[in-house]
């Protein structure tokens, strides 16, 4: 059996067990003759628990017991044994039980292992996906915008007949290369994911669009867990007099933009403070503000805040590329993005998004 019962003789001293399994002898020493054993000397952990046990035994009531919780002891063969010690009183005698942990130890261990590995893995995955998609978007944007410019110029050359006889041939070569590159960009996108295929300057419907307020709500719901973990309040405040918050934008990308800004705000907000997403109407625009009570953005960083690879002082999170992504995305829709200090301290990032044409 996997339980050893030891009868207490004196503080730290126990009557040797009549028989003991191999692991007991390996950890606590072979019990010889009838002289008392001192298991607390062989295991520092048990020694620590016996201090609690002594206090307990001095005042214990029948049917009460205390447990040491699981502890792990090394075996001479290099392996390990998980154990649990229990102090109780039986017929007036203090008893120490040493045994394998109560609940099915292996099952508990496996469950913990799985849950923990998964939760770490999940966090890493989310971070990776975000990083990759934002990076991909930026690369594609940076390649395709100038490329479109090159293509346009080449087309003009031909159309305007600016070409010397040899020039026409060269223009054709240049044009072929441009088309090749554009195809390549499409292929890169394709290789990554079907969903990001639409990343190159999006064609959006100017006459209808997603509801900015529901996008904000969608994002705050998704981030409420993170906010709770760091004890930050998170809420949306809308101007109640506004009927229609629709904007001319692409819904999933708008949510990603808001996600970036709110995620950042939560990271910088001190525990106990609130992150607020304010949505209101301003003439032809819907304005959204993401406010936190964090340290704000240092004046020296502001001019380059929305540029590529600017990240505060090796800042929390990957704000740098994130904000760049936000700017180029919003600019694609004809909107704008900016930063203000909050009068009462903290940061206020704003988005101005065009309303759909009515």
């Amino acid at each position, binding site marked *: 059996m996997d339980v050893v019962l030891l009868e207490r003789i004196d503080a730290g001293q126990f009557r040797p067990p009549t028989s003991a399994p191999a692991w007991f002898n390996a950890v606590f020493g072979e019990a010889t003759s009838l002289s008392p054993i001192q298991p607390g000397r062989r295991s520092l952990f048990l020694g620590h628990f016996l201090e609690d046990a002594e206090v307990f035994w001095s005042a214990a009531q029948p049917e009460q017991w205390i447990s040491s*919780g699981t*502890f792990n002891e090394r075996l001479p063969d290099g392996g390990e044994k998980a154990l649990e010690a229990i102090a109780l009183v039986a017929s007036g005698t203090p008893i120490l039980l040493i045994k394998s942990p109560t609940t099915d130890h292996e099952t508990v261990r496996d469950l913990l292992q799985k849950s923990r590995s998964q939760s770490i893995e999940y966090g890493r995955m989310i971070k990776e996906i975000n990083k990759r998609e934002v990076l991909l978007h930026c690369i594609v944007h940076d390649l395709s915008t100038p490329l479109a410019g090159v293509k346009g110029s080449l087309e003009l050359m031909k159309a305007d007949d600016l070409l010397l006889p040899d020039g026409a041939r060269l223009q054709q070569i240049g044009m072929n290369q441009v088309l090749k590159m554009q195809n390549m960009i499409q292929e890169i996108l394709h290789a990554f994911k079907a969903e990001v295929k639409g990343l190159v300057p999006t064609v959006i419907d100017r006459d209808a669009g997603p509801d900015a307020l529901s996008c904000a709500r969608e994002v705050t719901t998704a981030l409420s867990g*993170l906010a709770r973990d760091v004890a930050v309040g998170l809420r949306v405040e809308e101007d109640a007099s506004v009927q229609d918050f629709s904007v001319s934008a692409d819904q999933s990308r708008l949510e990603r933009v808001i996600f970036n800004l709110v995620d950042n705000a939560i990271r910088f907000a001190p525990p106990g403070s609130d992150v607020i997403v304010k949505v209101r109407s301003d003439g032809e625009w819907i304005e959204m503000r993401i406010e936190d009570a964090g340290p704000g953005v240092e004046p020296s960083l502001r001019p380059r805040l929305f540029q590529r690879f600017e990240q*505060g002082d090796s800042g929390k999170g990957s704000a740098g590329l994130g904000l760049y992504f936000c700017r180029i995305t919003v600019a694609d829709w004809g909107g704008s993005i900016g930063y203000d200090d909050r009068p009462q301290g903290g940061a206020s990032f704003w988005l101005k998004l065009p309303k759909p044409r009515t």
Partner: protein
Amino acid sequence: MIQKKICMLGTSGVGKTSLVERFVNDSFSEKYLTTVGVRLSNKIVEIGEQAIELVLWDLNGEDKFQRVSTSYLRGASAYFLVIDGSRPATEETALVLHRRTRATIGDVPFIILLNKSDLSNEWEVSQEMLDRYDSNDWVARRTSARTGEGVQSAFQEIAQLALTSTLS
């Protein structure tokens, strides 16, 4: 010989067991084997002329699945708060454990370990975090159980702290 009990505190997967393994056996494993319950290890260090036996209490990680029992803290001369520098959210749990430890055993010296410093691409320790430690007069060190960076010196430093705190 003087014995000093040192606790390893932090959320799961930050590298508590790995740091102890690196320090005691100079080894490292990439594989994650979560610690259930407590595991004690010891190693002798020398502070000046004096040899001290460090008894390292590698405790289970505190997370939504399990808490660290305060009964394990009694008698600690110092403790490490271990944070995974690639997962800034692990700081929160370290601070919770710090508050609980202080409430249980009082003002015992501690060192913050920003572990996994080898993951430079993933590193997310901000200046703001470091400034906050500074302004609290907290000692924080970068370590990597994988490469060994900063590990020996951190344990040496905590031995020193453990010694002086109980002398006074």
